[in-house]
């Protein structure tokens, strides 16, 4: 395709620093002058120099002169590493006889979605079963110099060297376009970069022709002379940009993004990709960064599209559009959920991770507004300096939205109640595309449903939460002998129920290792500062079974809910069951002991509820099981083994906590919501989500 390919115009500077001082000075100068790209060549190792430069600059992109890397697989890892360290800003240019092999190796290693290790049996670069990953997070263009046919077929761009005057003939447009088309690509997928020598002549006319007639979009000035680099940036560059912009406007040149072959081939059926609302941030399976978004904490996923709204209005647009697509729809805040399918296979994920603001609304009322995509550890960190905290769950990596619309059984449950009990208002996106505010006085029915069954009625984008004053607290971890599990559970349960409300305790045990003594860990938070009171509160817990080890100290809330960061890499499907029981009586304890003895659940956790949780009337929120004293969670590896054993325990339960339940049998819905709650919830659902768009997390409709 002769003519303008419509890519954004970028200007670069090629430097060959003879020494360290020159290298950094050249980079800083280039950045200050507004160059987009720095090409590093020369005697000093280019990769080392450009890494150094990337670390000490803010904006400029770096690329080493085209080369044939000594070990292509190591080069792939190096480039991906710099991409992560510097937040993108790196490109790769290949040349030489090995460039085809190197391109295959690098692309293959970056393809985290491909199954199985990488094999490339090239004559110049061979890999024999290398593990794939990591992929660059920002998408690193790969240029090929010296082989336009390869560039057209496979690369992101062609790299050449021309003299501006008469350079048109040196850009192999026919070869590039032909090779691209033969490979099923749009010729616009292949960008064109030229390195041009500096000359005394005004180059604007010639360079504009390269852009407008030969499809070049990156022009790299090759000069060791800082004065020439400055003149080009200050005089030629604005004139060139202006001329290109005007010509493009006049000709109506298409300048939008190109749907690449790579992207197109990875799209899933059932999603109308071309109809995604304009301006919305989306991540497709063929996009960089997809690997970090596809899965959740507990589930492996392969969604066909991830929508990442940056505002409530965008979230509303996204939800309204997603509702028109006949594929699974997952709503994700932090991605820790058991019950909610916040990822899927071939569906859409509405990821609220960008809506993560934390702002104080009213100091006197301790009212804070928190984005649904924030993590609870971040909230704890932000509020601790004020001497505040909002009770959440037991992990700082959990997202705000999912937990604060389901319940929230955390370290201050008995003293402050559930997380939903701290919610004063919410900004909610409805399936019809509107954004409403829900509170005791605005959409009160919606506000009722949001607290316990939020996933059924809307997508919360932010919450107004009433924080509590929390300073130094007591934190204890006791390791107890669990050789009599039923007795241990009964005595621990009784001790917790007898304790004042300032104590909240969780017990963790599981299948025991053969040959090792059975143990359980008891964790407790005591919401007081006085060490003597803390010890008084913990002593009864330490007395319920022989104490094997202990760690008791003063702590802050952020130390207890440590922020968990990083992308999720869950695999498979979690198998978990939940029961809410009133007391750990003989029946419950015996059933739990049988479960533990069977070795069915490697992770068995009981959280104390009661206290302030039970102060709220059952009909006040969609979380109705206020009378339950304990939330019991078991994670197993096999549903067919866990369910029968758990059903025997569950026979003694009042209900379940939906956030921890993965059993698909329909009766679980009745366990989550007692009849009166379910009836009201169905009525609210009919009004706010009549089409049943929200159907992937305990749907009541």
């Amino acid at each position: 395709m002769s003519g303008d390919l419509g890519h954004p115009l970028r200007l670069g500077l090629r430097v060959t620093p003879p020494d360290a001082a020159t290298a950094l000075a050249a980079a800083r100068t280039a950045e200050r002058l507004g160059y987009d790209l720095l090409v590093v060549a020369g005697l000093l190792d280019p990769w080392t120099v450009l890494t150094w430069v990337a670390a000490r600059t803010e904006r400029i992109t770096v690329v080493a002169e085209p080369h044939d890397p000594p070990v292509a697989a190591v080069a792939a890892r190096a480039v991906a590493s710099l991409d992560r360290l510097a937040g993108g800003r790196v490109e790769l240019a290949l040349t030489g006889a090995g460039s085809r092999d190197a391109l295959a190796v690098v692309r293959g290693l970056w393809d985290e979605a491909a199954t199985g290790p990488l094999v490339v049996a090239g004559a110049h670069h061979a890999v024999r079963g290398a593990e794939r990953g990591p992929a660059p997070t920002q998408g690193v263009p790969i240029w090929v110099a010296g082989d336009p046919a390869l560039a057209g077929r496979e690369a992101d761009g062609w790299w050449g060297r021309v003299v501006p005057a008469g350079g048109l003939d040196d850009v192999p447009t026919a070869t590039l376009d032909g090779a691209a088309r033969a490979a099923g690509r749009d010729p616009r997928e292949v960008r064109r970069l030229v390195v041009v020598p500096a000359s005394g002549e005004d180059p604007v006319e010639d360079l504009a022709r390269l852009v407008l007639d030969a499809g070049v979009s990156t022009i790299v000035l090759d000069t060791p002379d800082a004065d020439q680099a400055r003149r080009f940036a200050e005089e030629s560059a604005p004139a060139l940009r202006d001329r290109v912009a005007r010509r493009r406007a006049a000709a109506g040149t298409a300048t939008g993004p190109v749907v690449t072959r790579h992207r197109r081939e990875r799209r899933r059926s059932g999603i109308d990709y071309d109809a995604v609302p304009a301006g919305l941030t989306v991540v497709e399976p063929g996009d960089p960064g997809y690997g970090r978004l596809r899965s959740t904490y507990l589930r492996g996923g392969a969604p066909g599209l991830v929508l990442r709204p940056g505002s409530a209005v965008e979230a509303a647009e996204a939800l309204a559009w997603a509702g028109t697509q006949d594929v699974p729809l997952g709503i994700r805040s932090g991605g820790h959920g058991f019950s909610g399918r916040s990822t899927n296979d071939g569906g859409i994920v509405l990821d609220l991770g960008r809506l993560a603001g934390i702002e104080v609304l009213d100091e006197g009322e301790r009212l804070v507004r928190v984005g649904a995509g924030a993590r609870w550890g971040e909230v704890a960190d932000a509020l601790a300096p004020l001497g505040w905290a909002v009770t959440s769950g037991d992990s700082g990596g959990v997202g705000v939205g999912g937990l604060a619309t389901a319940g929230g059984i955390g370290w201050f449950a008995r003293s402050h109640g559930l997380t939903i009990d701290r919610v004063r208002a919410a900004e909610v996106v409805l399936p019809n595309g509107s954004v409403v505010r829900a509170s005791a006085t605005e959409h009160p029915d919606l506000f009722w449903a949001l607290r316990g069954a939020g996933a059924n009625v809307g997508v919360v984008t932010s919450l107004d939460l009433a924080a509590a004053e929390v300073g130094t607290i007591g934190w204890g971890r006791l390791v107890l002998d669990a050789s009599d599990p039923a007795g241990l559970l009964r005595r621990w349960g009784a001790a917790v129920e007898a304790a004042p409300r300032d104590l909240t305790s969780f017990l963790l045990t599981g299948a025991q290792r053969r040959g090792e003594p059975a143990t359980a860990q008891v964790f407790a938070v005591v919401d007081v500062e006085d060490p003597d009171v803390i010890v008084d509160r913990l002593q009864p817990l330490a007395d319920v079974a022989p104490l094997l080890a202990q760690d008791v100290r003063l702590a802050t809330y952020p130390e207890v809910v440590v922020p968990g960061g990083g992308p999720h890499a869950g695999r498979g499907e979690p198998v978990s069951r939940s029961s809410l029981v009133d007391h750990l009586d003989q029946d419950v304890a015996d059933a739990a002991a049988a479960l533990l003895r069977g070795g069915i659940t490697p992770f068995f956790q009981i959280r104390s509820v009661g206290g302030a949780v039970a102060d709220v009337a059952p009909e006040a929120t969609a979380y109705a099981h206020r009378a339950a004293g304990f939330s019991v969670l078991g994670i197993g590896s096999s549903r067919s083994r866990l369910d029968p054993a758990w059903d025997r325990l569950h026979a003694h339960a009042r209900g379940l906590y939906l956030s921890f339940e993965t059993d698909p049998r329909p009766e679980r819905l009745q366990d989550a919501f007692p009849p009166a709650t379910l009836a009201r919830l169905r009525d609210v659902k009919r009004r706010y989500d009549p089409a049943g768009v929200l159907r992937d997390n305990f749907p009541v409709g």
Partner: protein
Amino acid sequence: MTDYGHDLILGSFLTPTNADPAAVVGLARHAEDVGLDLVTFQDHPYQPAFLDAWTLMSYVAAVTERVRIAANVHNLPLRPPAVLARAAASLDLLSGGRVELGLGAGAFWDAIEAMGGTRLTPGQAVAALEEGIDVIRGLWDTTARDRLVTGGDHHHLDGAKRGPAPAHDMAIWVGALKPRMLRLVGRKADGWLPSLGYLGSLDALAAGNAVIDEAAVGAGRRPEDVRRLLNVGGRFGPPSDRFLQGSPAQWAEQLAAVTIEHGVSTYILASDDPTEIELFATEVGPALRDLVAAGRG
């Protein structure tokens, strides 16, 4: 008693996990801030969960001011020595002489081969490392006027242009455990860098030192030409009779004894815990230096 009299260097051995690169870089800066002399990273290019060691070292060098940086240790089968020599010299020039070169012969041959490296027998790997050291030292030697001809079956240069030379007399520390490698250390290296975990016991230090010393003397060098470094791990806590499982004061006493007894002068702590790194720098370090100074009289 073999104390080679080197000044003490305390370092950190950080896991280069790529899931949160800012955290690794932050720990390296923390190590500098709390006063450690050295930051090191393992180099396993076949491990997709790790950052590329060379790229990370270059980045860390750019965002630190004082601390020295080394790999612990480079995987030579996947780091061609001629390239590594130029890269190391370049970073040494950029960083004002803060780079040292840790080298290893390679161990995980399935993974090395999978990445495109050549599988070698243990004997070949030692020979390749020795040729690699010759290549690196030859390329750094810009005082020689001739083009470089060196190496053998594994790494061969036939008329290579020399340079750049590093900014300082860069040390080559070799990770070694077995006699053939230890003899190479004695002949050619500036330092021996084993991990205590792999050595198994402090007694193995004495045995290794003996092999190195003999090889050094045999090659016309002095035993003190080879610094003795050691990767260590442990826990700070209540006093106990176990090695590096106790108070910082106890750590200092135990390490001082190793210095006086076995001549180890560089301790590199394998830990990603900022508190442990700080205790090592601020409490173990000064006490250890005092004890060693007193012990050396």
